[in-house]
C-alpha cells in the first residue's frame, strides 16, 4: 500500500462525487421519458444494433472490487464508483481545474458555527429513496450514529469526528453530537476544529443510507444483509439492478432523481483487465473507460471512434527511502537527483506527464525549499561524499502492477548505476510487495505511486505519525515529530492563509529529510466513444461520474 501510497489515499478519500449537486433545481426533465424501474430480465432490447445503442452505457473502471454495496464497507475504488451511481452524500465537491469547492448534494446549504464546531445542514426537500420512501434528516442521523458500529467499516470515516459517535452502543441510538431539528434540517457537532472535515464529508464512506431498511439489521453483519449483497437502496441517479460476479454491475435510471432524471436508461459497470478494456473500446463493446495505462495512449488516439482524454492524474511516482539503511542524507539526495525523470516521461509516457516540485499532493512548497532536479554530476559527487558503501547493492522494491513501471525501472537502474550505485531491482506482484514493505531490513528504497492535485495534504499525514510503531514499515520512516505536529496544527487552523503558512513549513521539514521524494506525475488516460456526450473527465479522474444524469449517447 505504501508504494501506491501518499495521496492516492484520497483518491478514495475525497473521491467520487456521486451526483454532483451543482444545479439541484435542474429536475425539469419529464420523468415520463424514462420507464419506471424493472428487473434485469425486463431490460428492453435496443432498437438499434451494433454501435448505435443510445439507451445503454457500458463503462469500466480499472481496479479491484469488493462486492458489498453498503457504503460503510468501502475499501476499493471500484466499489465507490458503484456507490456514486446509487447513493448521495450531504455535500459534494467540485473541481474547477485549480481548486475544489464544496457544493450542494443532499444538503442545499449548510451553516458553520463561528467556533467551527457545529455544522447545520438544510436538506433538499422532497427527496425519495429508490423504494419510494421519503428521505429525511432521520436517515442522516441514523447513518452518522451507527457509523462506527458497522463491521468492515472504513476506518477513514468522516462521522468519527462527530461528538458521541464513538460512544453509541445501541444500533438505533443517536449520538450526542447529532441533532435532528426538523425533517429537512440536521446539525452535527464535531469535537475539535477540523479544517479537513468538509473534505471528509465528500469521502465515499459518507454516503447516506436508508434508516427504514437498515434499522432492523445487525450492524455486525453488514456484509451479509440483503441490502449489502443484492438490494442496496439509495437516493442516487441510478437504481441498482444486479451484480454478476466478476462481470458487471447493472443499473437503471431513477426517474425521480431529485437532480433530474438520467437520460441514459441502462448503465453497466464492467469488470475488465486493462488490456481487455483497450480492445473493447476499439471494438465498440465499451463506451467509457477510466484509468487506462498511459502507455497505450498512442494506440487509442489512432481509433477514429474514440475521444482520448489525457488529464493530469493519479500517477505520482517517486522513491521512499528506508531511513534505517539510508542513514546519510547525501545518499538519499543522490538517489533523488540521480534519475532522469524528464527522459522517462518523454520516452515511457509519450510526454504525458510533468516533473513534480511539491513534496506532497495538495501541499504548497516553501519558498526556500530545495528541489531535486536531475543532475547526474551532482548526484555522483553527493554519493562519493556520502557514507554509503558502493559495493553494497541498493535494493529497490516496486509493485509491478503500476502502469509502465516495468519499462522505466530499468532506466532508473541504469541512471543510478551511472552515478556509482550498484542497483538490485526487486519487482513484485502487489500482495507480495505489500508483505515486503514490512521486511524492513530487506530493501533500501520502495517506489511509490501516489495521487494527484486537488487532494487534501492531510491524506498523507499517516506517513508522518512519528509515534506509530505498527506495522513494521512505519519504522523505516523519518519519525520527525515536528512534521506530525505541523499537520495537527494545520488541521486545527481554520484560517486558510495561516494554514497555508503552516503547510509551507511542514513542506520544508519533509523536503529536508529527503525521505519521500516525488519525481513526476503522469497523466491519467481515459477514453470514451465520441457518441457519449456530457462527460467531463476532471483533472482528477475520480470525479468523472459527477453529473452522470446529464450524459447522453447519440446514435
Amino acid at each position: 500500500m505504501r508504494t501506491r501510497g501518499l495521496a492516492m489515499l484520497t483518491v478514495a478519500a475525497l473521491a467520487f462525487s456521486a451526483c454532483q449537486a451543482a444545479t439541484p433545481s435542474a429536475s425539469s426533465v419529464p420523468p415520463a421519458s424514462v420507464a419506471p424501474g424493472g428487473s434485469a430480465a425486463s431490460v428492453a432490447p435496443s432498437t438499434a444494433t451494433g454501435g448505435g445503442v443510445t439507451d445503454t452505457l457500458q463503462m469500466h473502471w480499472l481496479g479491484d472490487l469488493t462486492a458489498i454495496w453498503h457504503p460503510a464497507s468501502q475499501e476499493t475504488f471500484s466499489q465507490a464508483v458503484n456507490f456514486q451511481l446509487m447513493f448521495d452524500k450531504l455535500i459534494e465537491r467540485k473541481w474547477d481545474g485549480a481548486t475544489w469547492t464544496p457544493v450542494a448534494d443532499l444538503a442545499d446549504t449548510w451553516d458553520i458555527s463561528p467556533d467551527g464546531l457545529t455544522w447545520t445542514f438544510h436538506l433538499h426537500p422532497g427527496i425519495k429513496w429508490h423504494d419510494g420512501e421519503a428521505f429525511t434528516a432521520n436517515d442522516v442521523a441514523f447513518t452518522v450514529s451507527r457509523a462506527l458500529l458497522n463491521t468492515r467499516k472504513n476506518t477513514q470515516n468522516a462521522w468519527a469526528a462527530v461528538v458521541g459517535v464513538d460512544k453509541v452502543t445501541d444500533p438505533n441510538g443517536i449520538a450526542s453530537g447529532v441533532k435532528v431539528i426538523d425533517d429537512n434540517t440536521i446539525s452535527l457537532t464535531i469535537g475539535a476544529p477540523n479544517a479537513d472535515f468538509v473534505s471528509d464529508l465528500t469521502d465515499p464512506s459518507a454516503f447516506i443510507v436508508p434508516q427504514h431498511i437498515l434499522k432492523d439489521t445487525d450492524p455486525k453483519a453488514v456484509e451479509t444483509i440483503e441490502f449489502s449483497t443484492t438490494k442496496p437502496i439509495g437516493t442516487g441517479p441510478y437504481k441498482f439492478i444486479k451484480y454478476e460476479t466478476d462481470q458487471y454491475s447493472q443499473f437503471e435510471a431513477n426517474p425521480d432523481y431529485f437532480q433530474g432524471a438520467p437520460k441514459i436508461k441502462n448503465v453497466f459497470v464492467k469488470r475488465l483487465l486493462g488490456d481487455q478494456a483497450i480492445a473493447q473500446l476499439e471494438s465498440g463493446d465499451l463506451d467509457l473507460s477510466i484509468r487506462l495505462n498511459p502507455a497505450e495512449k498512442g494506440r487509442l488516439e489512432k481509433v477514429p471512434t474514440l475521444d482520448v482524454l489525457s488529464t493530469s492524474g493519479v500517477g505520482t511516482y517517486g522513491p521512499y527511502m528506508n531511513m534505517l539503511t539510508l542513514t546519510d542524507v547525501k545518499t538519499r539526495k543522490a538517489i533523488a537527483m540521480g534519475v532522469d525523470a524528464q527522459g522517462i516521461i518523454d520516452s515511457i509516457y509519450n510526454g504525458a506527464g510533468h516533473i513534480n516540485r511539491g513534496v506532497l499532493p495538495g501541499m504548497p512548497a516553501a519558498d526556500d525549499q530545495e528541489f531535486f532536479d536531475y543532475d547526474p554530476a551532482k548526484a555522483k559527487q553527493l554519493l562519493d561524499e556520502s557514507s554509503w558503501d558502493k559495493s553494497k547493492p541498493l535494493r529497490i522494491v516496486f509493485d509491478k502492477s503500476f502502469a509502465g513501471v516495468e519499462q522505466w525501472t530499468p532506466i532508473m537502474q541504469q541512471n543510478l548505476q551511472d552515478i556509482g550505485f550498484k542497483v538490485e531491482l526487486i519487482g513484485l506482484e502487489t500482495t507480495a510487495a505489500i508483505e515486503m514493505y514490512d521486511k524492513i531490513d530487506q530493501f533500501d528504497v520502495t517506489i511509490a505511486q501516489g495521487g494527484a492535485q486537488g487532494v487534501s495534504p492531510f491524506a498523507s499525514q499517516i506517513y508522518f505519525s512519528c509515534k506509530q510503531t505498527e506495522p513494521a514499515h512505519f519504522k523505516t520512516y523519518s519519525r520527525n515529530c515536528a512534521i506530525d505536529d505541523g499537520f495537527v496544527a494545520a488541521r486545527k487552523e481554520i484560517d486558510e492563509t495561516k494554514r497555508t503558512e503552516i503547510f509551507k513549513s511542514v513542506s520544508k521539514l519533509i523536503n529536508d529529510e529527503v525521505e519521500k521524494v516525488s519525481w513526476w506525475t503522469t497523466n491519467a488516460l481515459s477514453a470514451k466513444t465520441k457518441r457519449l456526450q456530457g462527460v467531463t473527465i476532471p483533472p482528477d479522474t475520480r470525479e468523472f461520474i459527477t453529473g452522470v444524469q446529464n450524459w447522453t449517447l447519440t446514435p
Partner: protein
Amino acid sequence: MALRADAQPIQVVAVERHSPGRAALRRFVRHRLAVVGMVLLTIIVLLAVFADVVSSRPFFTDVKAVSQPPSAEHLLGTDRSGRDVWARVVHGARTSLVVGLGAVAIYVVIGTVLGGIAGVRGGRTDFAIMRAVDTLMSIPTLLLVIVFVAAIGPSLFSVVAVIGLLGWPGACRLVRGQMLSLRESEYIMAARVVGVSMPGILFRHLLPNIMSSLAVLATFGVASAIILEAGLSFLGLGVKVPVPSWGEMINAAQSPTVLIDTPWLWIAPGIAIALTVLSVNFIGDGLRDALDPRAVRRR
C-alpha cells in the same frame, strides 16, 4: 514373430552387423530433419553461450530510442525501455534454455522411471505411484510451483528444480499407459520367458516404443516451461527483473500497443521459442527412429 522377420529381413541383418549404439547413431544421422534440429539447437546454445560476443549489452537502456523498429544499429529494434532486442534475445536464451531443457529433462526422466515401474510392476506399486500422480495432477501446478519457489527462494536453479520435480505426472501416466499395453504384448512375454531381466526389457524394448510419445511430451513441455518461467517472473519468483528471458519478452505482447504497433518486441522471442521447440521435436523424431529398429520410413 515369424511375420516380423519375413517382413523386414534386410533390416534385421543390417542391425546385427554393427554394435547397437553405432547403428542407432547411423539411423539418427540418416534422419535428415533430426540433424537439422540438432544443428539448430547447437546454434541456439552457442548463441546463448557467446551472447556477450555476438551482441551488445542487454541491460543498456537508451531513453532516446524506445520502441524503435529494426534498423542497422538495432538488428531487431529496441524494446519499451530502449534496450536492444537482439541482445535480449540472445541473452534471454540462457535463461530460457536452462529452464526449458533442464526442467523438462528432469521431469521426463522421473516420469519415465516411475511410469515404467508402475506399468511393469503393476499391483501395489502401480497403485501407490498412480495415487501420487492423481494428487499432484489435481492441485493447480502453478500454485505448487509458487509455494515451492517461494520456499527455496527465487533463482534460476529453483525454478528449474521445482518445475522439474513437480512436472513428472504427465510423463508418468503416459509411460505407464503404454507399459500396461506393451507388458501384455507377445514379444515382451517372449522376452520374459527367455529370461531377459526386467531392466533389460525396459531399456531394450519398451523405451523405443514410448519414445515417440515422450518426444511429443518433451516438445510441448519445453515450450510451456519457458512460458511458465515468464509467469513466475511476473510474480517476482523467476529470474531477477532486468535479466532477460524469452517468456518475459513475449509477455509484453499482453499490451495491445505491443501486439499490434510494435510486433518486433514479441515476434523475435516467439520465433526463438518456436525454433527451440521445433528442434527438440525433430531430435525426438530422430531419437525414436534411432532407438527403434522397426521404424520404417516410408517416403
